[in-house]
């Protein structure tokens, strides 16, 4: 049981976060909750990407006075570089979404998407 948790907890947890976020985006009616679920999906994707590059008992890919040469084992640095970009883009998307929510709230005075005229979902 402990072996199974050790081996699958990182992949499984990240994928579970992605699916919880997807369910939240599809089924919630409050606009802020939809945005929070979108952020949750972003977090899950970033965690999955970093977990794919893990090497067991290896160090972070930075040379310093303790780890002095690249003969040591390092984890994969490329998923970490991709996740840097992905986090920034997630922030930009959430900021733009919040600006849209502010304008919608100014016009319709409600955050419930079923009460806004014209939407049938």
């Amino acid at each position: 049981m402990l072996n199974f948790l050790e081996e699958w907890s990182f992949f499984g947890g990240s994928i579970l976060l992605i699916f919880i976020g997807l369910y939240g985006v599809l089924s919630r009616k409050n606009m802020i909750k939809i945005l929070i679920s979108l952020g949750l999906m972003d977090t899950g994707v970033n965690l999955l990407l970093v977990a794919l590059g893990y090497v067991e008992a290896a160090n972070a890919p930075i040379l310093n006075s303790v780890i002095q040469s690249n003969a040591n084992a390092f984890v994969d640095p490329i998923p970490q570089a991709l996740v840097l970009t992905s986090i920034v883009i997630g922030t930009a998307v959430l900021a733009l979404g919040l600006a849209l929510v502010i304008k919608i709230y100014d016009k319709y005075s409600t955050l419930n998407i079923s009460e806004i005229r014209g939407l049938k979902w």
Partner: protein
Amino acid sequence: MKSRNLIALLITAAFAFIILQAFTINPAAGEITLNKFGRADINNRTASRYLNKNVNSENEEVIFQESKNLESGSANIVTSVVANYRSFDTLGEITVLFLAAAGIGVILNLKKSGKKKFADRDSSLILNTGIKFLFPLLLLAGTYIFVYGHLSPGGGFQGGAVIATAFLLKMISDNKFEIKESNITLVESAAGILFVGLGLYGLVTRGAFLENFMATGTVGQLFSAGIIPLIYLAIAFKVGAELTNIVKNLIEA
């Protein structure tokens, strides 16, 4: 349960079924597949070329404070990927952030509305005093993070985010703290021009856009790694100014 929740659950289950197929593929001999957790084979990936710094040269070992004039002299390998080997993707990321900041400025349309700010009452004494103490320390921490971006974890994006947090705290706690939007735009544009100018200079003198045209020095010193500190300087100022602009627009809407 309501029909809308049930349909959402069914769509999520279908998506889950398709994604989890990736973990059940049995590869033929020699094919690359999804590795089990913790057993990534670095030597078969392009990461081994970035770790040994031999993408375009024949280098084999990199020793802290001893190897000189490598093709990317930064001790932080993620920095060398983001700001040297794949710096064109970083240019794309800066463009996305600029697009978001410009989009928020257009959507919120602040000049015509003229509404009052929501924070019109004075903040409490603890908030005021605490942030007066923290503001220069946060600026210092953010500056340290991006100046040492090639030697320790950090870099332009992280340092810019910390600097924007400092300005956000100051705007929350002090009603009379104003930054003119034209100053923010000036800093952001100057930093963007610096980044693209470095790239064009590399194109003109060395033949490739954003090529590292300065000497890379010894791995591990502060003045090393060619143009990577300059790129991170431009990125930190640009990201800090953009996030401050976004936060200022969201507070004033």
